[in-house]
């Protein structure tokens, strides 16, 4: 029971302290789940992101469901998902209820402007540490750069990029003897 509550609390913190949604949540997820709690490995977190991106639904929710399930099965999945959505429910309801001029409030707008800049630094830091872990050879580096360029310059959906990378990985395993003997 205590672990379920911990799951709920951890995801409540992550949901309640991230601005900008899904991907900007990565530094927070990493800090709470990998560094602080040691519940998942960094590689696993990236796998959950990949799966969360190709499956229906909100990515952040998919990742929290995944981590919760890994930790404590179905009930764990439910607790972490509810933890993730609780802050949104509370905060957005309050804003809708009381603050009709929330967006036009200059303090809110300035604070959000400042937060965005910090999120940039946090995200850059996360991407660099992720890259160090996930890019293990030249092929990995090529795939990473290709994925970046395709997503930047073409309207190809991210789902397609993830799926193609996965298929390539399967084909390589099939035809590369060196991989097979590993």
């Amino acid at each position, binding site marked *: 029971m205590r672990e379920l509550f911990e799951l709920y609390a951890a995801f409540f*913190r992550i*949901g309640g*302290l991230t*601005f*900008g*949604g*899904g991907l*900007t949540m990565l530094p*927070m997820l990493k800090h709470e789940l990998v560094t602080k709690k040691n519940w998942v490995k960094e590689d696993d977190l*990236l796998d959950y*992101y*990949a799966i969360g*991106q190709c*499956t*229906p*639904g909100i*990515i*952040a*929710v998919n990742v929290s*469901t*995944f981590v919760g*399930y890994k930790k404590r099965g179905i009930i764990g*999945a439910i607790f972490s*998902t509810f933890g*993730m*959505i609780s*802050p*949104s*429910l509370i*905060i*957005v*309801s309050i*804003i*809708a209820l009381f603050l009709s001029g*929330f*967006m036009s409030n200059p303090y*809110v*707008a*300035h604070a*959000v402007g400042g*937060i965005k800049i*910090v999120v*940039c*630094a*946090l*995200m850059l830091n996360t*991407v660099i540490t992720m890259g160090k872990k996930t*890019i293990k050879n030249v092929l990995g580096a090529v*795939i990473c750069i*290709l*994925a970046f360029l395709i*997503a*930047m310059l073409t309207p190809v*959906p991210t789902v397609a990029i*993830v799926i193609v*990378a996965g298929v*390539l*990985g399967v084909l*390589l395993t099939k035809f590369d003897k060196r*991989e097979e003997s590993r």
Partner: protein
Amino acid sequence: MRVYLELFIEFFQIGLFAIGGGPATIPFLMDIPKRHDWYKVSDVANMLAVSESTPGPIGINMATYAGYNAAGILGGIVATFSLVLPSLIVIILIAKLLDNFSKNKYVQGSFGLIRPAVTGLIATAVYGIFQTALFYDTEGKFQIPVVLLVVVAVYFALMNVKFLKKLHPAFWIFCGAVMGIVFKM
């Protein structure tokens, strides 16, 4: 009572068919006013703005806001739960499958390439945030990029100090909010 059932049906569908996270729900949200008078198409931009400036996943915030517009606080709760229900079901199924197949060499091979690809995708998101933070202030006017470069440089310098590394990202976010208000960013 009927409105809650309608909310459930609409948002369960969105949760089931919107692939690619929060932004993928926007076309669905634009579609809803054709069938229900919960909000107008023109309100979607406002919903997005509120969702982006409040904590939490954007897709969840928008569902809560849309549901609230339709049927008050309970409406927000119903919409949000309906949106996450498909995720819960699908992800639990996949997690179960992955348990059985995670040792499989093909699964390992595919994730070996998916991980660097996802790293590249996340880098595009960083670039996107850089762009909005760098070039536009709250009035949509050009903002001095130097501010951002200095912040990033200072951040990385601080990150080399061991004990600062352990600080919660929320601490930096709070610093950012204060900085934003002080410097009217």
